[in-house]
């Protein structure tokens, strides 16, 4: 009866995935936009060496006034283009690492709850419910305010509040798999829990987790920029949200100072959402996070 062991959840192969992905217009647009944002972030130290927080020009120059500052300067004479490219690095970095934190917690709790069931599940889902009830942004705000804003505390706070949806999703998937033939057969032949979870369950949960991850990165970027807008960004690095917050003071006369970094946030978040949508369709998933 070894035949049953070869039955596994039908998921497309990676090679097929890429082919499917590039047939989806939303995924192509998303990838292109993301490439643009990531490229800007990578090129920032080359294009604009030096600290983007330095005052290097006359204040409040409109875009196009001085070819040296294509997007103009803010009220302190900081180059807006430099801020946006360096901000891309910071936003993507914080988004990625915070998502990693959320993934570790969410997948761990979801897999534990789904696989072990019973009391473990009840306790873990209680915890998830609690974290889902506390308004996530207020919670993030409180953590950063108490611990003082810096990149590590911001990453930690976003990761700590971002996982509950993922945990529920992973739990549901694991529940489905646990009663499937693959896992039941593994139990029969005496495989250890760690082996079953690591080899048979997690790989099959990967697809919805990947889709969720791209949406989590988008949300993390939104949260980070919101924190910075409220003045809870790391004071030593440039942030798109902080730039909008600063530009808010001069919207009556120089609205471009607040407008430009906001468009950068839209581009980054839109790219990741489009990519998530495209992945979702390409992997033929019924549902992922939200």
């Amino acid at each position: 009866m070894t035949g049953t062991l070869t039955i596994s959840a039908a998921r497309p192969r990676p090679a097929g995935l890429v082919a499917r992905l590039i047939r989806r217009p939303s995924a192509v647009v998303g990838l292109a936009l993301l490439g643009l944002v990531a490229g800007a972030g990578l090129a920032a130290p080359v294009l604009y060496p030096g600290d983007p927080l330095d005052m290097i020009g006359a204040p409040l120059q409109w875009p196009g006034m001085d070819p040296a500052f294509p997007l103009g300067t803010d009220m302190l004479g900081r180059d807006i283009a430099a801020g946006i490219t360096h901000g891309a690095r910071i936003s993507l970095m914080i988004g990625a690492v915070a998502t990693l934190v959320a993934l570790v917690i969410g997948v761990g709790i979801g897999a534990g709850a789904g696989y072990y069931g019973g009391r473990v599940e009840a306790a873990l889902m209680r915890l998830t419910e609690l974290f889902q009830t506390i308004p996530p942004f207020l919670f993030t705000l409180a953590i950063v305010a108490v611990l003082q804003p810096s990149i590590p505390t911001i990453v930690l706070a976003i990761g700590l509040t971002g996982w509950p949806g993922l945990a529920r999703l992973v739990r549901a998937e694991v529940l489905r798999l646990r009663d499937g033939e693959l896992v039941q057969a593994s139990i029969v032949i005496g495989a250890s829990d760690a082996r079953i979870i690591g080899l048979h369950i997690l790989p099959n949960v990967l697809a919805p987790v990947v889709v969720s991850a791209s949406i989590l990165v988008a949300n993390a970027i939104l949260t980070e920029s919101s924190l910075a807008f409220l003045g809870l960004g790391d004071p030593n690095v440039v942030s798109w949200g902080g730039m909008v917050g600063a530009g808010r003071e001069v919207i009556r006369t120089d609205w471009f100072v607040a407008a430009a970094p906001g468009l950068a946030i839209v581009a980054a978040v839109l790219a990741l959402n489009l990519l998530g949508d495209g992945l979702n369709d390409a992997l033929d998933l019924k549902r992922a996070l939200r």
Partner: protein
Amino acid sequence: MRMPAGGSAAIRRLAQMVSVVVGIAVVNFFLLHLAPGDAAQVLAGEAGSATPEYIAALRAQFGLDQPLGVQFAKYLAKVLTLDLGFSVRQGLPVAQLILDRLGPTLLLMGASLGFAVLAGGALGFVAARHAGRPLDTAISALALLFYATPVFWIGVMLIVVFSVWLDWLPVGGMAEIGTGRTGLAHLGDVLRHLVLPALTLALYYLAIYTRLTRAAMLEAYGQDYVRTAVAKGVRPRRIAYRHVLRNALLPVVTQLGLQLGAILGGAVLVETVFAWPGLGRLAFEALFQRDLNLLLGILLCSSVVVVLANLAVDLLYAVLDPRTARA
């Protein structure tokens, strides 16, 4: 057997509320002890900015000279009796401050959600009925764009367009100060101030409900009862309203409950941009003045609001889908 089922659901929610309050008290307690320095100093703000008397009062209030277990028990007892302490910065009890600001926030959230659900539902409905055609593509693209736009930036840009350029609507606040308007004139004034913040907060959720309604309707269109209705010759318009939309509303209502916490978070940003005197603005003030006791009180109360709202969603669910009331 509807009543007992409804009653047990309410009891379950009440039990959940207590456990949430206890859970958040634990979280708050942890946060205060995680912070660098003495919890009293954390509560009072940066060391040096508070008077020694205030620090001493805080120490006594939280029993910081006692063992950790005793401290936690005392803190929990206070929270459970809704004693959230005193905000020296604002000169009022925290519970009082929160109650005063709850009204404007509920007005803002209600207006935003109402608009988001109605407009989002309508857009999703239209998109689903034109699935795959240009109108659907346009609506879906618009929803994606709103979904990706940070709420604070929408607020700032709406102020630029409607307050600075066009001068149609006020830049902020909840009413014109010093006009002494009463009755209808006052109401009109508040509504004029409400338009931009409510619209700002609504656009993100409008996007969510558009996408959700569209997806739920497309799924409902694939159901057997729709095929039956088509087969017996029910007109498409009637199918869309009676059979598809009604069933598509269920996931929308579920999301409504799940999203409330997130909307409260959005309210912090919107109220800060528009100087709307609600709970979110209070949270920002608490943040700005490093009045952490107040901030944690707001966190606790808004979580309770979320639990209560979920209770309301449960009840609404029973009306929309009688099967759930019997389950």
